[in-house]
C-alpha cells in the first residue's frame, strides 16, 4: 500500500484514538458496556489495522512472537492467581471480598484485575491468530 497515502495518513490519525478507546472500554467496563474481552478485541483490531497498512514486518517489530506468547500466558496467569491470592487470604477461590479489608473495595479491585487479565490474554491471542494466518504465505 505504498501509494495509498490517504489511507496511511488516516490510519495514523485514528490509531491513537482507537488505542485510547480500547483503554476506555477496558477500565470503564464497570459503568458502561464493555470489559476486558471487548477491550482486548479492540486493541487487537487496532493492531491489525496497523499491520494491514504499515506492513507485517513493521508490526512484528512492535509485537514479537515471544512478547505475544508471554502476554498470552501472563493474562491467564494473572486471572488465575487472583483466585490463589484470595485463597491465601482465607476466602474461597476468586472470592474478591478477601482482597481488601472492605468487601466493596475488594470486589472492585478483583474485577479490575480479572478484567485486565482477560484483556491482555485476548489481545495477545487475537494478534497471534492474525499473525499466524497472515505470516503463512503459501506461494
Amino acid at each position, binding site marked *: 500500500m505504498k501509494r495509498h497515502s490517504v489511507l496511511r495518513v488516516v490510519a495514523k490519525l485514528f490509531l491513537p484514538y482507537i488505542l485510547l478507546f480500547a483503554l476506555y472500554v477496558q477500565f470503564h467496563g464497570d*459503568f*458502561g*458496556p464493555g470489559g476486558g*474481552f471487548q477491550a482486548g478485541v479492540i486493541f487487537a483490531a487496532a493492531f491489525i489495522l496497523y499491520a494491514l497498512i504499515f506492513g507485517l514486518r513493521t508490526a512484528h517489530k512492535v509485537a514479537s512472537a515471544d512478547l505475544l506468547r508471554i502476554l498470552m500466558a501472563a493474562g491467564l496467569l494473572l486471572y488465575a492467581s487472583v483466585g490463589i491470592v484470595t485463597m491465601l487470604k482465607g476466602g474461597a477461590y476468586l472470592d474478591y471480598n478477601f482482597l481488601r479489608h472492605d468487601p466493596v473495595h475488594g470486589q472492585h479491585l478483583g474485577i479490575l484485575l480479572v478484567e485486565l487479565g482477560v484483556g491482555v490474554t*485476548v489481545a495477545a491471542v487475537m494478534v497471534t*491468530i492474525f499473525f*499466524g*494466518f497472515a505470516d*503463512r504465505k*503459501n506461494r
Partner: protein
Amino acid sequence: MDYFGLYNYWIVIFLMMTGFYIVISRDNLIKKLIGLNIFQTSVFLLFITMGKVKGGTAPIINHHFDTYSNPLPHVLILTAIVVGVATMAVGLSLVVRINEAYHTIEEDDIHLVEEEP
C-alpha cells in the same frame, strides 16, 4: 392458546436451521465453518431473546429506570461468543493446513486425493 408471542423464537429457529443446513450439506470446508458460525450466532440470539423483559432496559443500573432485562443470559452468551470465535480460529487454521497438504478444500476432492496410492 396464543402462539403469537413466539414469533421471534420461530424466526430464530429458522436462522439456526439455515446455519445447520449449511454445515451438513456443504462440501467446502470453509463454507461449513461459515455455516457453523451462523448456527452458533443464532443460538446466541435464542438465549438473548429469553432474557428480554417487556418495557425493560439494559441491565446497567441507572436511577431513571427500574425494570431491567435479565443479565444472566447476556453473561452466558458473552462466554459462548468467545468460545465460538476460538473454535472458528482453530477450524480455519486446520483448513489452511489441509489446503497445504491436499491442495484442495473440497471434501470430495480430499477423498479423491486420499484414494490415489
